[in-house]
């Protein structure tokens, strides 16, 4: 299908470009322009990041009352804080007086937040508790009406705290929907759940936030090319890899608007990445536990910008052992071609200190700013935004292809009926349905529909 062009400009209009994404299920393509366009970026901040649930952090980052961290939803600054009563708050970081941000550090512990402009002071629940010279200059001011604003909705899932800037959007439970079946494989397989190690690593890349988010839904195809050097060195043991014969693949698409890929060893009870005795059936069904113990590789994206990755990897195959870790990612948009990457490494809370350290080192050594698996991703993603934002690219209506395995492109089978988990499931890691799901959710958000497919079909 062609692009509608507006009459005053030879370039496609944003509305037309967005509309074209809505046909991804039929065409398998999207206009590349969405990966670098000022107008679309602005609309994303207003629609995607203001109307969906966005990851803020993990509860283990702020264990004690007064612990706080500065976080962002789209371009809006928030304070992620455990208040004096032990409750987690997500407060808009903007003083009720003249509006400047009141938090100076990226994290710490405090009993109050004091604005540097005129010293209005708030407690950790956001209540205004101090106005200098109030009895002289602000006699009539009712401080109860001037608490810091809270994010309209805040909720957590298995320790992951999300916030939603719309009070009307469906609850987090509805939003995550059936996809929690897959999140639990990574968050609930061990007693005590998961905890964050260290502070999230942050860095900025010259590409669009959606590139990382779409890649992490399950772009296994790129692994063979982009990560060939890491595979050749057994950093990801080749028998476990996407081309390996031993593993059983599954792509999970259309799961409450979210998607992921899994690969597991069907013929082994235990794949060896986590200590075997850490697994428990307390929180998982038999099917989930069976799968969790066999996983060798999984990635997924909770729309819009939270991704996760769990892999059995080894940054030194000659001297170390294959180790699993959980990587949680946030692709924070900074501009149409600028993304701030937030990278957390999580480990089972109940594991030994020795294992936690080894898992962390495996995580940063493979999937972080210096990760020897992932540095190659960041070497190629910049180019996508460069071409997508170019005049000629827009003029010719450059499209990005997500047709792999779809329709008659391959023999990929839908195995939803035999697979124990929810969603539309394919018995391959070589199909683009996971990415189509992501862009379908993007289209729904950009056209004002809630992401829950129950009310958007």
């Amino acid at each position, binding site marked *: 299908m062609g692009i509608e062009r507006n009459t005053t400009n030879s370039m496609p209009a944003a509305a037309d470009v967005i509309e074209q994404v809505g046909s991804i299920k039929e065409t398998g393509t999207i206009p590349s322009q969405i990966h670098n366009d000022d107008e679309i970026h602005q609309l994303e901040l207003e629609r995607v990041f203001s109307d969906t649930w966005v990851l803020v952090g993990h509860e283990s980052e702020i264990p004690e009352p007064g612990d706080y961290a500065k976080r962002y939803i789209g371009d809006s600054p928030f304070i992620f804080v455990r208040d004096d009563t032990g409750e987690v708050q997500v407060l808009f970081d903007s003083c009720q007086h003249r509006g400047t941000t009141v938090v100076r*550090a990226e994290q710490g512990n405090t009993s109050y937040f004091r604005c540097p402009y005129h010293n209005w002071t708030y407690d950790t629940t956001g209540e205004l508790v101090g106005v200098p010279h109030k009895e002289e200059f602000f006699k009539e001011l009712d401080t109860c009406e001037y608490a810091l604003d809270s994010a309209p909705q805040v909720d957590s899932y298995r320790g992951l705290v999300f916030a939603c800037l719309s009070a009307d959007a469906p609850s987090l439970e509805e939003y995550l929907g059936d996809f929690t079946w897959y999140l639990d494989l990574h968050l609930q397989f061990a007693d005590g759940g998961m905890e964050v190690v260290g502070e999230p690593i942050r860095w900025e890349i010259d590409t669009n936030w959606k590139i990382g988010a779409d890649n992490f839904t399950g772009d296994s195809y790129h692994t063979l090319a982009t990560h060939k050097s890491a595979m050749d*060195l057994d950093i990801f043991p080749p028998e476990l890899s996407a081309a390996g014969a031993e593993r059983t693949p599954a792509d999970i698409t259309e799961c409450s608007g979210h998607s992921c890929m899994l690969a597991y060893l069907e013929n082994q009870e235990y794949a060896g990445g986590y200590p075997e005795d850490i697994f428990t059936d307390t929180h998982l069904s038999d099917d989930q536990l069976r799968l969790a113990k066999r996983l060798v590789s999984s990635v997924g994206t909770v729309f819009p910008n939270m991704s996760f990755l769990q892999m059995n990897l080894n940054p030194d195959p000659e001297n170390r052992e294959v180790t699993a870790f959980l990587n949680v990612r946030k692709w924070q948009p900074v501009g149409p071609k600028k993304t701030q990457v937030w990278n957390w490494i999580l480990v089972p809370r109940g594991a030994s200190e020795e294992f936690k350290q080894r898992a962390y080192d495996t995580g940063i*050594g493979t999937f972080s*700013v210096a990760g020897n698996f992932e540095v190659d991703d960041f070497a190629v993603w910049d180019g996508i935004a460069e071409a997508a934002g170019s005049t000629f690219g827009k003029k010719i209506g450059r499209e990005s292809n997500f047709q792999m395995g779809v329709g008659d492109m391959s023999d990929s089978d839908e195995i939803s009926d035999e697979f124990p988990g929810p969603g539309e499931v394919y018995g391959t890691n070589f199909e683009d349905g996971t990415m189509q799901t992501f862009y379908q959710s993007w289209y729904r958000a950009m056209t004002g529909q809630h992401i829950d497919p129950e009310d958007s079909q």
Partner: protein
Amino acid sequence: MSDRFELRLQCEEFLYREAEFLDDGRLHDWLELLTDDVEYRVPRRVTRERGSEESEFSDDGFHYREDLGTLRTRVKRFDREYAWAENPPSRTRRFVSNVRVEETSDDEVRVKSNLLLYRNQGDTTDSDLLVGERHDTLRRVDGSFKLAQREVQLDQTILDTRNLSFFL
């Protein structure tokens, strides 16, 4: 010439030679400068309020926490044409300065220095600047220095670089 002055010159000579190996892509020669038990760390820097009791440098958050084995694996990877992060290779220039000999023992010297690393890559005028302080331990092995420990304390908390596909 005082012994301490001469010692500093020897340390500088080591650090400049090491920088040359890294800037010239002679990573196998660089590995030869490391002791078998080398500890190579780049802790994450955290923006904290003035007066905070906690260190700005994370105790458990790192960009790099490596030993000789993991460093060797990284170098082997860079040898490959499919290591896209370094193909085409980064053009780096390290400026090592303000070399200070902090402590000496019979066979080890603790040295601080400043590092300014310029990186440019590919078909662009963009560049990355990574600036920080190195805290090194140099050990005499068979009459010459080797690097036994390095901690690089970067001046940025959010790195302005697409990746750290090089050593600091």
